[in-house]
């Protein structure tokens, strides 16, 4: 078998090199390393189902829909999350709030979590902070259809993960408020 090998400039092997080859010096160095680890045994394993590591504050886990403190949904059905999602996880069916023609809400809200890559772009896109990322990650299921979540399920996840709810902002007249957020550069109305 003739294989072209780029040879390094040849150095005459010294007596030390010869002795090292003869006594398997490199092997002994490696074996010393493994034995040192055996004698100073400090495992870095976390026994996962029994012990869980502390998750960071900005952990991006399961998505959830949130509510205001009076129990009403934050979502205004604007479809921006659907537009922001790179994996087309989210599908929103928007509708008018009955009796209030200027306000909208999401009639239906679906998430296909089998495709979600947990980038958090939908959370950033949401103008009313209606989406949140929880710290739940143990979502292994036997049937992948269980990961097609509807609005009720997403709200339930939000309810159990965010027990402290945000206060509803009443900064503008409810009939003109589409995005119920503060506009700091505009003078605020007195109610």
């Amino acid at each position, binding site marked *: *078998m003739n294989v072209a090998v780029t040879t390094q400039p040849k150095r005459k092997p010294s007596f030390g090199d010869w002795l090292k080859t003869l006594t398997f010096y490199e*092997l002994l160095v*490696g*074996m010393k*390393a*493994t*034995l040192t*680890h*055996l004698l100073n*045994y*400090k*495992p*870095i*394993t976390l*026994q996962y189902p029994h012990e869980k590591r502390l998750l960071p504050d900005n952990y991006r886990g399961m998505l959830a829909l949130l509510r205001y403190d009076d129990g009403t949904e934050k979502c205004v059905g604007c479809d921006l999350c659907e537009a922001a999602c790179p994996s087309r996880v989210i599908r929103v069916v928007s509708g008018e709030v009955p009796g209030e023609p200027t306000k909208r809400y999401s009639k239906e809200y679906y998430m296909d979590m089998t495709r979600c890559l947990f980038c958090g772009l939908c959370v950033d896109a949401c103008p009313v902070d209606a989406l949140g990322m929880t710290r739940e990650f143990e979502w292994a299921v036997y049937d992948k259809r269980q990961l097609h979540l509807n609005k009720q399920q997403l709200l339930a996840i939000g309810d159990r993960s965010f027990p402290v709810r945000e206060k509803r902002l009443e900064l503008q007249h409810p009939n003109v408020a589409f995005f119920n957020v503060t506009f700091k550069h505009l003078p605020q109305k007195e109610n």
Partner: protein
Amino acid sequence: MEIGLRLAVSLAQIAAVMGVVMLTVMVLTLAERKVLGWMQDRMGPMEVGPYGVLQPIADGLKLFFKEDIIPAGANKFMFTLAPILALVPAMIGFAVIPFGPSMTIELFGMQIKPFVISDINIGILYILAFASIGAYGIILGGWSSNSKYSLLGGLRSAAQVISYELNVGLAIVGVILLSGSLSLVKITEAQAGGFWNWFVIAMPFPQIFAFVVYVISSVAETNRVPFDLPEAESELVAGFFTEYSGMRFAFFFIAEYANMILVSCVAAALFLGGWNAPYPGTILGHLGLDALAWIENVVWFAAKVYFFLFLFFWLRATLPRLRYDQLMRFGWKVMLPIALGNIVLTAIAAYFFPR
């Protein structure tokens, strides 16, 4: 009557040795994973039982209840034969291993050697012969599976056999020259009386080179890292037993570990004095407890065997796998000349300074 008794005693001895070997295999499967884990800063199996000590039982149950699959297109006869052909030679070699002092006891008017099943005068030759049959199990298993991974594993095993088999035989010749016998019992007895009589360092010519050659070759013989070419899990899935499942897989698995124990026993008996303590006699014997001295000898034998078994784990945790051209080059161009030179020098030394 006489023959019946003798048969019963032999069967009892075989059952005891097999029991100890199978128990050691069980311990080894756990010990390997634990030691490997500890060396790599892991914990090893921790789930079954306290600190995972019952893992071998769980593994055994799992393998026992697994579906036994014969792949379509496999040669059924060879496929069935291969695991047996791998396991039997690994087990049968223990027949000539002396586990303890070669004393005889009187039982029902018969002379019985309790620590060796059969002291045949060609013991080491018998082990070598059966060890090479074990390789047929691997090659046949690889060939009959009708799978490219298995076939490649079998081919590599064939390439490996021709590079280590010769060196094992030649490394042992020096010891045979010094002891003047092929019987493992006689070889062990020739090393009695302290560690300076062990053949690794014994005068007139220390067999240290032969010992190193034997240990390296025996690692290759048992298909262990760094010579696990037939298995090569990162290249060939599982090599020759890719297609095996259930108890057939377990047979290959047990055969590998039994082979490890066997070559460790042979290495201990040939080079490290077998059941002899590293000091003259035994402590229990010096204390006047001659009847119990065998315990000390058996413990020494077990300690030497377990040292070798630990060495196998240690090498596995440390070394990467060789290519088979590297193995063949190392076998033929390095180990073979060393083994041959060792024979020549040992023969000269044994001629001028007979023991």
